[in-house]
């Protein structure tokens, strides 16, 4: 059952990825990317990492992709006139799709040649459960975690400062 689900999710994820790079409309690409993310969440769920799976849906599908769609919708209108559409009609997608496949074949061939199919032993106890993730984030990687949040905070403040009209800034 797990094997079937794994191959189903994996195949659908690859389909989502291929559709993402082959679509001409950026909005439709984004929708396929969301589809790929949902399939990735499915794979995390099969791996007994429900927290990671739900995070994948909550953060990527619920927040980041919505932001992407917003940005695409704001930019789409003026950018895609007929001239530029013609440029996009060039078969660019092989250039995007071939390198990953080449890497995949390389890695696959290397594994076959060296004969190792064991990828790093057993999964630790409680892997992907909220408690385990919390212990790592608020224990071992606390400093990195806090630094990342400060970076994000600075980014928010910066975006607000840029977004506001220059004369309204308090220091001008």
């Amino acid at each position, binding site marked *: 059952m797990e094997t079937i689900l794994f191959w189903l999710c994996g195949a659908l994820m690859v389909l989502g990825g291929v559709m993402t790079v082959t679509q001409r409309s950026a*909005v439709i690409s984004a929708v396929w990317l969301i589809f790929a993310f949902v399939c990735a969440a499915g794979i995390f769920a099969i791996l007994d990492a429900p927290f990671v799976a739900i995070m994948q849906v909550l953060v990527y599908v619920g927040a980041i992709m919505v932001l992407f769609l917003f940005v695409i919708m704001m930019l789409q209108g003026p950018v895609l006139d007929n001239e530029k559409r013609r440029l996009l009609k060039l078969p660019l997608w092989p250039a995007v799709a071939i390198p990953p496949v080449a890497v995949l074949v390389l890695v696959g061939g290397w594994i076959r040649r060296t004969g190792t199919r064991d990828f790093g032993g057993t999964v630790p106890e409680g892997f992907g459960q909220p408690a385990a993730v919390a212990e790592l984030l608020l224990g071992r990687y606390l400093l990195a975690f806090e630094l990342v949040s400060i970076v994000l905070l600075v980014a928010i403040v910066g975006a607000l400062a840029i977004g506001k009209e220059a004369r309204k800034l308090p220091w001008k």
Partner: protein
Amino acid sequence: MEAMYAFFMDTAGMDEMAAHITVAVIMATIMFIVMALCAIIFTWMERKVAGFLQSRYGPMRTGRWHGWAQAVADMLKILGKEDIIPAEADKPYFIFAPLLVLLGSLLAWAAIPWAPGFVAADLDLGLFYIFAVTSLVVLGILMAGWASNNKWALYGAARGAAQMVSYEIPLLLATIPVVLYTGSLNTQDIVIAQQGGVLNWFVFRDPFLFIAFWMYFIASIAETNRGPFDMPETESELVAGYHTEYTGMRFAFFFLAEYANLFLVSMIAVMVFLGGWWSPIPGLDFAPAACFVVKGVLMVFLNMWVRWTLPRVRVDQLMHLCWKVMIPVTLVCVVGAGIWMMASGAVG
């Protein structure tokens, strides 16, 4: 649920996998039927409540007794209407969007604990799961607005997405103190932790939880896109917002999803803050599911009361309320509830 598995495995002689699949199909069907019934009953209820609050009767004629059949008749009318897909619309996405909106709330319904042991998907991360899958609704709304190829629909969708993504934060933060108290994200564990009468419900545990409950309530109104926060549908500005171009059956999906979401957020409020299936008086828990549903319907009534009482806010007021008032207040609630817990000795 255990009884259902036992029935299919022992009496009907299925193996475990077949029993699992059968139970899943049955539960999904029950959820869908309950959801459709909710939409019909709440449409009628909304019109009666609106009438009551505005000193008029509301529907009185169809079906004789207080116009009870009006909602059924409306549903039949909607199903019989012509299904129009605009020529310039993005067809596959136009068709898929209402289904995605409905899917988002139906998936979340699966983790609602109706009675002890009776929950379609008993997940360890139930509460978290509910918030994750309801984010699909945002995508559905955005997709509907985009695929309609109509500027009002797109405006409505953009407003809806901005509003729902923003209000998701106070909604989640308001439930965190409860998770602190319970130490679990399982929906059943959260309800079980509130056993023992009305004073053990999380809403009355400490002052911070009381504030968190009202923060949750306000955020949940914004999440369901209902008045006074119905910016995505402002009929005076945007015709009908993201579902302007939808007709017939597809419009009915949006309608169904709105009431399904309304009942969903009310049920989450009941589950997290108002004691779930426990009755207010300890020891009177002979009908847990009924108790749960009655509390849910009362929360829906409160929601309708607010909708028909307050005027609509402006977009900037809406965002101001979320980012500058509700998020700081809920953050204070999280910290305050933690300190209260340590001070009262609920945790070591």
